[in-house]
């Protein structure tokens, strides 16, 4: 339930078809300021490459990338300034993907709230993974759960 995508696909070794460009590859030390700067850099690149064709797509992309980066800093590296977050942004024709890797212990579906349970409505946290899972087309958490690959097929292509 955590992942959605192709069965048997190995996100550690491969990318889905059609990605031919690395738009960005960088790392930052875990701080919220760096995290924010990285997010802004990514959004600028996505705009420059015309991946965000509507306000809605932009809002959802920004939200998902923010969640992935913040999760890496906060839950993965636990704000440890010595730990890095690695980010790679890939581009293809009408599709983009982002890989976010932290140095934390990872997580499993067991760590997340049960979204079907109405009680969780009142929780003041725990919605990020659900949002990522809804708005991105393919989502792969891998290794021990400390790495994630998110894939978006732009509506432009459809």
């Amino acid at each position: 339930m955590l992942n959605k995508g192709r069965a048997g696909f190995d996100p550690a070794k491969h990318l889905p078809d059609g990605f031919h460009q690395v738009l960005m590859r960088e790392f930052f030390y875990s701080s919220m300021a760096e995290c924010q700067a990285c997010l802004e850099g990514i959004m600028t690149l996505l705009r420059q490459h015309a991946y965000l064709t509507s306000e809605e797509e932009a809002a959802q992309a920004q939200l998902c990338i923010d969640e992935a980066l913040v999760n890496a800093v906060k839950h993965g590296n636990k704000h440890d300034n010595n730990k890095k977050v690695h980010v790679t942004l890939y581009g293809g024709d009408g599709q983009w993907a982002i890989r976010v890797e932290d140095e934390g212990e990872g997580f499993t579906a067991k760590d997340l709230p049960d979204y079907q349970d109405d009680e969780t409505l009142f929780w003041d946290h725990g919605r990020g993974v659900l949002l990522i899972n809804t708005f991105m087309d393919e989502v792969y958490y891998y290794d021990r759960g400390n790495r994630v690959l998110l894939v978006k097929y732009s509506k432009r292509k459809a």
Partner: protein
Amino acid sequence: MAAILMTQSFKDIVVAYFQESAILNERNIQLLAKELDDIVDRHRKIQLLLNFNQVEYLSSAVLGKLVATFKKVQADGGRMKLCCIRASLLPVFQVTKLDKLFEIHDSEEKATAAFAKKGFFSRS
């Protein structure tokens, strides 16, 4: 002091307008949480309307703060509603089912009118 919210009172309703188009970074989110807390603390049984007209981007952390504020308002016997959320952001509320928890109106007029109605029929 930079503020995330600007408030105006209309009769007994406090309308809080978001001043930022993106509420994402930690500082903004902490500021927002503090401002919401202060607003609720200053009014007994507050009738609070959050106007999202300016907001283009938000994160799940913001949703968390909204839920926390909602719980606080309810505990004090007050009411909280949301209005003017952009169509591009509505899915965020729908996916998280927060559109069921919060009463969301498409205009400020409808929201303020809904405060006037009491009880079970307060949803428009």
